């Protein structure tokens, strides 16, 4: 798998609307050390590992700012969002909803699974597309290269369950 270093520029020329096309989503969880508990109900999100102080994490590369591109299927323009401005998934989802005027990415997921037309996913450092919400927030901000709000209909691969984003969102309330 090709690794893109931090700061590499990806210029993609496409015909047609950005964000279109099929994307295979890997539902296997990234190795976030919670493997130690073998999954299950009482799975603890492994926060704060490795023990690098929050202040240091924010400041090493990015000047504290973490701008990533966000594309939404059907929208003609990409936007950018600063991940460092948000403290967790629920804040981010709210910001995305406001950016695109698409309310329901987070809300619909809470009320009824599978009802929401859109699913938020992100591309990580390894180039894999991941469902938002699996890993602890800090880990996500470090590994997220860009975001995409995808039409559920376009997702192939293992069933995309909103449960996990739901769990992450509800933990933050």
């Amino acid at each position, binding site marked *: 798998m090709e690794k893109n270093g931090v700061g590499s520029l990806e210029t993609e020329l496409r015909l047609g609307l950005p964000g279109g096309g099929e994307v295979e989503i890997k539902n296997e969880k990234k190795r976030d050390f919670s493997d130690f508990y073998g999954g299950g109900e009482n799975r*603890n999100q492994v926060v704060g590992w490795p*023990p690098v102080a929050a202040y240091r994490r924010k400041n090493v590369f990015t000047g504290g700012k973490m701008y990533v591109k966000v594309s939404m299927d059907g929208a003609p323009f990409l936007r950018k969002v600063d991940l460092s401005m948000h403290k967790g998934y629920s804040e981010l989802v709210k910001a995305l909803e406001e950016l695109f005027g698409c309310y329901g990415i987070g809300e619909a997921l809470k009320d009824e699974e599978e009802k929401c037309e859109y699913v938020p996913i992100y591309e990580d450092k390894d180039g894999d597309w991941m469902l938002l919400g699996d890993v602890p927030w800090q880990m996500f901000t470090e590994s997220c290269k860009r975001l995409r709000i995808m039409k559920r209909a376009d997702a192939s691969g293992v069933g995309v369950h909103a449960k996990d984003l739901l769990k992450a969102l509800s933990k933050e309330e």
Partner: protein
Amino acid sequence: MAYSFPEEVLEHVFSFLSSDRDRNAVSLVCKSWYEIERWCRRRVFIGNCYAVSPDIVIRRFPEVRALEMKGKPHFADFNLVPEGWGAYVHPWIRAMSEAYPLLEEIKLKRMVVTDESLELIARSFKNFKVLVLSSCEGFTTDGLASIAANCRNLRELDLRESEVEDLSGHWLSHFPDNCTSLVSLNMSCLGSEVSFSALERLVARCPNLRTLRLNRAVPLEKLPNLLHRAPQLVELGTGAYSADIRSDIFSNLAEAFSVCKQLKGLSGFWDVVPAFLPAMYSVCSGITSLNLSYATIQSPDLVKLVSQCRNLQRLWVLDYIEDSGLEALAASCKDLQELRVFPSDPFGAEPNVALTEQGLVSVSEGCPKLQSVLYFCRQMSNAALVTIARNRPEMIRFRLCIIEPQAPDYLTLEPLDTGFGAIVENCKELRRLSMTGLLTDKVFEYIGNHAKKLEMLSIAFAGDSDLGLHHVLSGCKSLRKLEIRDCPFGDKALLANAAKLETMRSLWMSSCSVSFGACKLLGQKMPRLNVEVIDERGPPDSRPESCPVEKLYVYRTVAERRADMPGFVWMMDGDKALAFS
């Protein structure tokens, strides 16, 4: 006998005692010495803000001029303490604004400070001189403006690593034109750009300025302006260390550095463009402290710089330095006492740099004065740890973080018990230890048997059973702070060693196996401990008593139960079965 010396004489003698331990000892001699001492104690250090209350402090020490205090437990640095847990300084400021009008110094660490508190400080203490806010949060640049505007004799304003809501850089312009008293200014944690001309004028009119730590937004091209106005600087934190590569910028910078003959410490170095590093070479021979932990440059550039600093005593650097760079460090810097190597890519699955245990071994071999280590790496062996221990028996602080939890000795696949055992056995002066990697109860047996001067121990993903915890609590005579996460330690060791906890400042246990029932029992047995259950899953008694709590924070205290607990903290009281906040 006590009456043969007049009070004034005793007071004069006591004025030579600066250490808290000495003053505490003096207070215990007899009642009159206690009285005399308490009236002349000027500095108070409170290691845990909840161990005592403002009223108690003020009642005992009516003439305090300097307060130093710490709030949240250390693991708050790693987001393990939920937001809103506590450590609010305002009640202290309120009480002191009435009781200590002559207060001069406030130094806080991991506390929540508001603009209201800063405004109250600015208004209440006419002779206020020193404000140090280390890893604090809750205030904005508006609060800083109050301090700048009103504290006529301000000497130190140090915001190290605090999280400040940065509304604008305008606060700096609030220092009045007749403020000439600054000795130390650390604004490195702020994001916004301050008015450069205001900064320039401030620096120029403060002849005693010794420490200046700029923030990232101060451009490199303008740094010479500041250096020329403060050639007496001893510690400098640069802003971003990058600019367009132009010879005039370089020569101006080099000339400005050459004027600063007293420089001993350097930090900052965000966004480093290596071409500008040689501009600093003229000061390198005098440098004793170098913080390159934000400098994302590669090993060859790091080595070139570090090898110029022959008198280096402290180096903080990213793991870009690699084993080869550490070998060069070991060869050049024979006075090195403290080394901290931080990870450039802590969440990456694969190593991105050639830094292994070998780098640390080289430094332990080449630097005879090495006593303090913080090292992040991805592999370790017992052999390496044994070598390090034998090389440096005078080690005082040893913090090793192997990034993968429970990583074994990569050569033998065994636990790292032997290696850490060698550390505690050889390093008899060891005061602080952080361990990672695959560790069994055995290592805790070694620690309990040998680490007699150990004061602070941090453990993660280690041990097999309660026996491990029992070894530590029963063996480590000098233990003051113990912080544990993700270890299979439960009720037995904790309850069996309950009395030990009163001899310590605090104990933190998260993601362990301590049951709610045991927490209740501990709270009942030990009235002089605060036993806080921190659990975001809702009330602990909505689950079985045997259910482990998420987080446990135990600390000794003489204060009443704190009144500022949020909804996810439950205090295990003695008198009630369960008390809700």
